């Protein structure tokens, strides 16, 4: 009798060989999962059309723009993406990632577009092709309710690492020092905003900076815990980011966004998630 036949017929032997079979099965599963290297490099509209789909990447926790609820990605950007999907000739697959992977993912061509709230700053313009603006915001700071601080001099302030709000905070710090103030005592960088808010509630930091939209959403969610301070930056546009030079794909996306805007659906969504709508936004980012 062959080995295999012997094993199949004799149950005791089979049981003893079970660990080996289980091991091999897991190894094969692992190999197949590791080698699903989807060729998701952003290579222009033609390749997307050939592939049939574009890849979008979204942050996992940035209320009210995007957040996870019961395992589903929700928020303003997700609703807007659903509308945009109706106006583009290709499918859009979405991946959820922490913030630190999103912009590098777009610059290295891993993802075609970052469908997430990216503030349009001068530093980012040379590296990214920005879509038509999806929102507008100013960076504010928030403190614990009842803190009543006069300004940010001598305070410990938290911000998300790699965010434009952090960069704006640093600029604000220089402005404070130029006006003769002490400047900020310390800037703490968090991997994501929920941790920054938790530390603020615990009193480890005196303030946290984020866009006005995010902070207002936070106040609504946790009434009585935090309160809004003053602005630390000028208003900036918020848009979706794509790889620089990917102009044909950007045009397709922009046409879709403007179509959603013309139909009034975008302002509806803005009212739903932010409580305000930005009708005066420019149509393109210069």
């Amino acid at each position, binding site marked *: 009798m062959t080995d295999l036949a012997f094993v199949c017929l004799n149950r005791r032997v089979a049981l*003893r060989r079970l660990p080996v079979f289980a*091991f*091999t*099965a*897991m*190894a094969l*599963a*692992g*190999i197949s*999962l*590791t*080698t*699903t*290297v*989807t*060729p*998701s*490099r952003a290579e222009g509209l033609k390749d997307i059309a050939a592939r049939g789909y574009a890849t979008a990447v979204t942050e*996992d*926790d940035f209320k009210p723009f995007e957040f*996870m609820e*019961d*395992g589903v990605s929700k928020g303003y950007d997700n609703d807007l993406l659903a509308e945009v999907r109706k106006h583009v000739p290709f499918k859009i697959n979405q*991946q*959820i*990632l*922490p913030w*630190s*992977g999103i912009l*590098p*993912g777009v610059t*290295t*061509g*891993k993802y075609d577009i970052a469908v997430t709230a990216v503030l349009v700053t001068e530093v980012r313009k040379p590296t990214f092709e920005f879509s038509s603006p999806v929102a507008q915001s100013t960076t504010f700071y928030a403190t614990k309710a009842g803190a009543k601080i006069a300004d940010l001099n001598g305070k410990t302030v938290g911000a998300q690492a790699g965010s434009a709000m952090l960069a704006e905070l640093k600029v604000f710090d220089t402005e404070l020092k130029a006006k003769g103030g002490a400047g900020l005592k310390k800037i703490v960088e968090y*991997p994501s905003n*929920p*941790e920054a*808010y*938790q530390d603020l*509630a615990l009193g480890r930091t005196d303030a946290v900076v984020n866009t006005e939209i995010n902070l207002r959403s936070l106040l609504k969610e*946790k009434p009585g*815990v935090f309160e809004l301070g003053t602005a630390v930056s000028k208003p900036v546009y918020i848009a979706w980011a794509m790889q620089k030079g990917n102009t044909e794909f950007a045009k397709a996306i922009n046409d879709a966004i403007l179509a959603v805007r013309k139909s009034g659906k975008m302002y509806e969504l803005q009212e739903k998630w932010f409580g305000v709508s930005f009708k005066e936004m420019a149509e393109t980012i210069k």
Partner: protein
Amino acid sequence: MTTYDYFSIAYGALATVSLSLVSIALGVPLGLGLALVRWSRLPILNQLTMGYVSIVRTCPSVTLVLLIFYALPVVGISMEPLSAAILTLTLSTAAFNTEIWRSALANFPRDQYDAALSVGMRRGLRFRRIVLPQIIRSSLPALVNEMTLQIKSTPAVAVIGIVEITRAAIRVGARTYDPLPPFVVALVLYSLIVFVFVKTQRTIERRYAQAGAPV
């Protein structure tokens, strides 16, 4: 904590266990392969293996997973978070397993080897029938110990967004601003998983300690 919260943490536990099992299943044979490369002293591969083991053994899992996920796309290798997680965990455990297998091979009694040679066994047969069963038995305790350690380093993949048990607990805590209950749940689940592994380790050690136990 809502029912969905409990479910999400349990689902995270499932992700943790599956990731660990898959990376163990891949890492143990890979470690054996690399140990054989070192043992047979193939010219360039030997040095490469030494370098790989040296670097990966001293690299924190967090940094390694960040390197594989964010940095490799720059040189053209792009992958999903799940693939990057499996690859990182496998490479990490394989590096340690290489050393374990290597010490078992080094401590293999020379006389058995010579006896096999004297009977005229070819290399493949000798390895499969004489060497392999015995080094499996002698390195099993260390391998299972390494598996337990491996489970405890799976949270490292949370930084690239894999929702395993730690990240699931953190998410619930960040939403409810009451982090203690989800952490306690995560702790209980983790201890259960580790307990199962340690129990298996003790059982295997006891079984294989019996002289002449069948493989």
